[in-house]
C-alpha cells in the first residue's frame, strides 16, 4: 500500500470546470502580483498536493513554528517555510481578507486569499534554514535578495505552468494510482539534481533490492551555476534506464521545485514531498542537498532521528566506490580492502572531465550516459 499523504489528506487546490471559469473571471478584476518561476512552481506544487497538507503559502504562525520547531503550527513535521515574498509597493492598499491574482509571464496562475501579511528577518531565516549567513552559500544569497514582506493564504490554481518535460510530469494523485496499478506495496523515492554516475546506480539498485519499486524523481528548475542543465539530467536518465534498469520496477518523473541547498532540513522536505507522491521509503544520500562544506557528510541522516512521526522510512545507504580487489561497486561496510584499491566516484571529478570533453571511464559512468552528456555543447547551468 502506498504511504498516506503527509497530514492525512492529499490536497487538491486545482480549480476545474465551471468553478475555474468563475474564478478566472473574478481573477481578471483583481490586483495582480507577478511571481517568479520558482514561486510559480511552488503554487503548482501546493495545488497538486506535492506539499500536502499545505493549502497555500504559510501564514506567520506556521512560518514561525517551521523556522524554530521544524513543525507546522499543528505539530506536523515541516522543515523549510514555503513562503511568498512581496514588496510593499506590490501590496500597497491590500489587506488581510483581500483576494489577489498571482501571475506568471502575464498569465493568471492562481487566485489567493491573503490571510496574513508579515515581515521576515531574512538573516534569521538563513541562520535557521541554512545554518549560516555566509553569502558563499547559494541559498543565503538568494534569500537575502528576496523582497521584504511575506504574504500567507490559501490558493486555487487556475492555470498550470508550462512544463518542457510534460511527458515526465506526474502529480501525486497520478503516481499514487500508478503505484497501486503496479501493485507496489513498497516504493523508494530517489531525489536528485545530477546526472547519474555508477555510485548513484549502486545506491538506487541497493534500495530497489528491498522494495517493490523505485521512483526516480529529479528536481528541475532553478539550480546554481555549474549544476547540470535539466534536459541533460533527463536525457542521461533516459539512457541509463533504457540500458540498465528493469522497466517494471522503475518510475521516472520530474518535479519542478527549487533546490534550496539547505542540507539536513531539505532532506526532510524532500522526504515529505516523496511521501506525498506515495513513496514508503526515501533514499537519503551522503551530504544530501548540501553545498560546499556547509554541512557534515551525514548530517542529513542524523536529522531523521528528530522525526519519528515523519511517516516515511529513510534508507541510509552508504556512499559507494569502486574497489579493484572486490571487482565492483561496494561500500565501506562491505569492503575489507585498503584505500589504495578504492576509487571514489566524485561528482566534482566527473564534472571536470566532462568540462574538458574527456570521457570518464566505465567504472565511473555508463558509456551511454557519457555519450548523452557530451552531445550537449554545454551541459552546465551558466
Amino acid at each position, binding site marked *: 500500500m502506498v504511504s498516506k499523504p503527509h497530514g492525512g489528506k492529499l490536497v487538491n487546490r486545482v480549480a476545474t470546470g465551471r468553478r475555474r471559469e468563475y474564478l478566472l473571471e473574478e481573477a481578471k478584476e483583481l490586483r495582480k502580483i507577478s511571481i517568479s518561476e520558482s514561486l510559480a512552481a511552488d503554487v503548482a506544487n501546493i495545488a497538486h498536493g506535492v506539499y500536502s497538507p499545505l493549502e497555500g503559502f504559510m501564514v506567520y504562525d506556521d512560518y514561525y513554528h517551521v523556522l524554530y520547531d521544524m513543525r507546522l503550527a499543528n505539530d506536523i513535521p515541516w522543515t523549510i517555510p514555503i513562503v511568498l515574498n512581496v514588496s510593499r509597493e506590490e501590496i500597497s492598499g491590500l489587506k488581510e481578507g483581500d483576494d489577489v491574482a498571482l501571475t506568471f509571464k502575464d498569465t493568471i496562475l492562481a487566485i489567493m486569499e491573503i490571510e496574513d501579511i508579515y515581515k521576515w528577518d531574512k538573516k534569521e531565516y538563513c541562520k535557521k534554514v541554512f545554518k549560516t549567513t555566509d553569502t558563499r552559500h547559494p541559498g543565503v544569497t538568494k534569500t537575502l535578495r528576496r523582497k521584504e514582506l511575506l504574504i500567507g493564504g490559501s490558493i486555487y490554481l487556475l492555470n498550470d505552468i508550462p512544463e518542457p518535460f510534460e511527458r515526465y510530469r506526474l502529480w501525486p494523485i*497520478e503516481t499514487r494510482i500508478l503505484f497501486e496499478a503496479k501493485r507496489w506495496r513498497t516504493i523508494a523515492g530517489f531525489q536528485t539534481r545530477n546526472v547519474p554516475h555508477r555510485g548513484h546506480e549502486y545506491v538506487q539498485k541497493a534500495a530497489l533490492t528491498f522494495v517493490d519499486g523505485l521512483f526516480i524523481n529529479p528536481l528541475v528548475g532553478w539550480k546554481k551555476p555549474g549544476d547540470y542543465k535539466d534536459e541533460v539530467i533527463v536525457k542521461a536518465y533516459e539512457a541509463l534506464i533504457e540500458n540498465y534498469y528493469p522497466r517494471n520496477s522503475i518510475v521516472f518523473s520530474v518535479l519542478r521545485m527549487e533546490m534550496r541547498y539547505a542540507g539536513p532540513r531539505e532532506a526532510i522536505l524532500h522526504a515529505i514531498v516523496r511521501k506525498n507522491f506515495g513513496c514508503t521509503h526515501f533514499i537519503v544520500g551522503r551530504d544530501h542537498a548540501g553545498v560546499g562544506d556547509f554541512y557534515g557528510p551525514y548530517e542529513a541522516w542524523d536529522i531523521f532521528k528528530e522525526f519519528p512521526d515523519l511517516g516515511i522510512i529513510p534508507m541510509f545507504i552508504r556512499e559507494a566506490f569502486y574497489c579493484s580487489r572486490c571487482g565492483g561497486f561496494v561500500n565501506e561496510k562491505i569492503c575489507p580492502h585498503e584505500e589504495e584499491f578504492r576509487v571514489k566516484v566524485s561528482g566534482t571529478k566527473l564534472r571536470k572531465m566532462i568540462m574538458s570533453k574527456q570521457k570518464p571511464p566505465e567504472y565511473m559512468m555508463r558509456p551511454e550516459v557519457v555519450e548523452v552528456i557530451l552531445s550537449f555543447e554545454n551541459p552546465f547551468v551558466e
Partner: protein
Amino acid sequence: MSEEKVAIHISKELYEKAKKYVEESEGEFKSVDDLVEFVLKEVLSEEIKEEVFTKEEEEKVKERLRALGYI
C-alpha cells in the same frame, strides 16, 4: 462519540508497562484507560484519513498514464 464505556482485556505485563508509563507521564495521562483511549484514537484516526479516489478520477488518471506509456 458515546460516553458509554466497555471493558477490554489486555495482558497483565502490558498493563504494568502502561501503568508505569502513566506514572511517568507527569499528569499527561490520568489512568491506563486514558492512555489506551488516546493510543486507539490516534491509530484509528490514521485509518479514517485514508484517501479514496472516485472511480471517475481514477479512470481519467489511468487514461493519461496509459497515453504516456507508464501503464
